């Protein structure tokens, strides 16, 4: 286990460094800069813009800028966000928790929902319940995030106004609520974006888990369990489920980038002030340090997700535990 962790940590550093470099190159190669078109205002003269560029070192050769930037990142200094006019670290600190809450909620809900659906389907394979729920999940599975998000908005925020349209909390009333009221306010705002991600994700989990369960149901040791005299339910839950969870955990690790990408789009649809919104606006305004920093955070989260999946998978499987 320790060897596995050390190897994965070394791998992670390399991956993050490569991502940082590529993103740096891409955003600098894109036309415009922080003081260009995005700052379109007749009152800022070309001379002033040139002076700002010189002050932030943007007139230097690209290689020099890269070395300076990567050096300060390595020291833990992510730089200054031009568009937010505050340190990059501060901008991340206010956006990251929102994204983590959204993704974490969606992840937990979809694991529960996906596995429950899979167990139900596997227990009644070929039945109407199995085929009906499989078809329904397939519909969600093949829907684009933004479309599903917009439809949910239309249904539950507009036609049937149960949930708020956007944001993390009520912009006006939140200040005047008690502790319980604030909590409810947050949950109500979280509901639709989290539901969008959950539906997408649980469909993938259920499809995968169902296949894994049916695979294990054919294995010899489930026949042993039946021969012992266990009820079909005990065979499914105690033997088949435990042995098929590993592949789903691995799948979740692999799906992490997709989940992150989905979160970015869902955040945009619901104006959720998380990493997704931060990255989109930073790109639009050519905020070089902020764009690079969000990419680094994304890479770190992706790598962390797959390491966690590996470790969980290994702890759950005695055959891998002492590897």
């Amino acid at each position, binding site marked *: 286990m320790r060897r596995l962790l050390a190897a994965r940590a070394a791998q992670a550093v390399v991956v993050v460094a490569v991502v940082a470099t590529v993103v740096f190159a891409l955003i600098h190669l894109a036309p415009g800069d922080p003081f260009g078109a995005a700052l379109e205002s007749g009152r800022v003269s070309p001379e002033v813009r040139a002076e700002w560029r010189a002050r932030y070192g943007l007139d230097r050769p690209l290689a020099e800028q890269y070395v300076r930037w990567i050096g300060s990142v390595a020291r833990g200094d992510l730089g200054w966000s031009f568009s937010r006019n505050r340190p990059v670290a501060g901008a991340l600190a206010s956006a990251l928790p929102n994204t983590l809450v959204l993704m974490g909620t969606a992840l937990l809900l979809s694991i529960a929902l996906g596995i429950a659906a899979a167990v139900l389907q596997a227990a009644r394979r070929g039945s109407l319940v199995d085929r009906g729920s499989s078809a329904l999940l397939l519909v969600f599975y093949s829907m684009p995030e933004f479309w599903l998000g917009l439809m949910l908005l239309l249904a539950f925020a507009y036609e049937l106004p149960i949930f708020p349209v956007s944001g993390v909390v009520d912009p006006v009333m939140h200040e005047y609520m008690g502790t319980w009221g604030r909590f409810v306010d947050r949950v109500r705002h979280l509901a639709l974006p989290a539901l969008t991600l959950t539906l997408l994700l649980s469909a993938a989990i259920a499809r995968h888990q169902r296949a894994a369960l049916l695979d294990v149901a054919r294995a*010899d*040791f489930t026949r*042993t369990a039946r021969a*012992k*005299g266990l*009820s*079909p339910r005990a065979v499914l839950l105690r033997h088949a489920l435990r*042995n098929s969870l590993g592949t789903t955990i691995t799948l979740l690790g692999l799906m992490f980038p997709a989940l992150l990408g989905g979160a970015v789009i869902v955040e945009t649809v619901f104006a959720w002030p998380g990493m997704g919104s931060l990255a989109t606006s930073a790109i639009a305004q050519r905020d070089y340090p902020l764009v690079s920093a969000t990419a680094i955070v994304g890479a770190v989260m992706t790598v962390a997700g797959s390491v966690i999946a590996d470790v969980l998978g290994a702890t759950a*499987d005695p*055959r891998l535990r002492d590897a």
Partner: protein
Amino acid sequence: MSERAAGVRPLVSVRDLAVHFPVKKGVLGRAKGAVRAVDGVSFDVFPGETLALVGESGCGKTTTGRAVLRLVEATAGTILFDGTDVRALKAEPLRKLRRQMQIVFQDPFSSLNPRMTVGATVREGLVIHELAEGAEADARVRRLLEEVGLRPDQASRYPHELSGGQRQRVGIARALAVEPRFIVCDEPVSALDVSVQAQVVNLLQDLQRDRGLAYLFIAHDLSVVQHVADRVAVMYLGRIVETAPGEALYDEPLMPYTQALLSAVPVPDPDAKRQRIVLSGDVPSPAAPPSGCVFHPRCHHPARDAACARIVPPLEPKGEMSGSGKSAGAPHLVACIKQPPTTVDDATQRAAGATHPPQRYLPVVGAR
């Protein structure tokens, strides 16, 4: 079927058992014919006795064993366990009956749950059948492990930490845990090293003696069962083609298929010369078994003729030897219309195109 001494009732009694697997083809998965894995099999297993079921790979031995325990659903036939109609049982009584009939699987690697410790695997049966719980169950598990030749502290091991022989011992302990009266041993040693095979076979024999167990012992060649079987049933393409007390079968194999199987068994005496019968052709597919005697395309009996392809030979009494010991009085049954005596008379055979009269043919003798 048995002509044994009155008063001995078979523990397991199987009549005309058939298991057909539907063959599905096409996108719609419609049934197109069937694999007749088991096709009209009858046998008895008496308390404390070992009946060996022998035949080539794919002849339906595993399916027969599993159907008896209803791990596979039979298509037709009756299965009585101590007088209980097993096929008619509902889920709950069947679950309860599983306490009395157990199975040791062919593959000791895949038949144990990789995520359960050895102790947990053995314990589970005890707990669900409410035979013991808590510390009492733990003590029982330790005793069982000792009984099958493992160390009690190996209870905390996982299957992957054990050798094949040790795993098969776990499989046996697991089956024994619920105190069954009957165990299907499905090729329990064929996945093991030759050096370990004898140990596991001896273990099974000791357990039988100590606990009075009845075994249906499945094997694919006759050499393995020679020392364990009271009676032997030879299977070919889903049917039993010959059954007899062990010594009678080895001394006087009458079904040409049994003769071929026996000719492949190594003889202990290096000077003994024995004709090796090499079967021609492959085993036909159980999805399209040959007509008449299923063995006729590969048969080497000198009297084999057109009647063999038209008449389904009945499994009928033949031979002079009868068993001794536990198998005393057990009949020697053979399905071959060309080995006299036969109830399929000359006229019937000739009407079916016979050109040869039945003729005693015994090329393999004294295989023991």
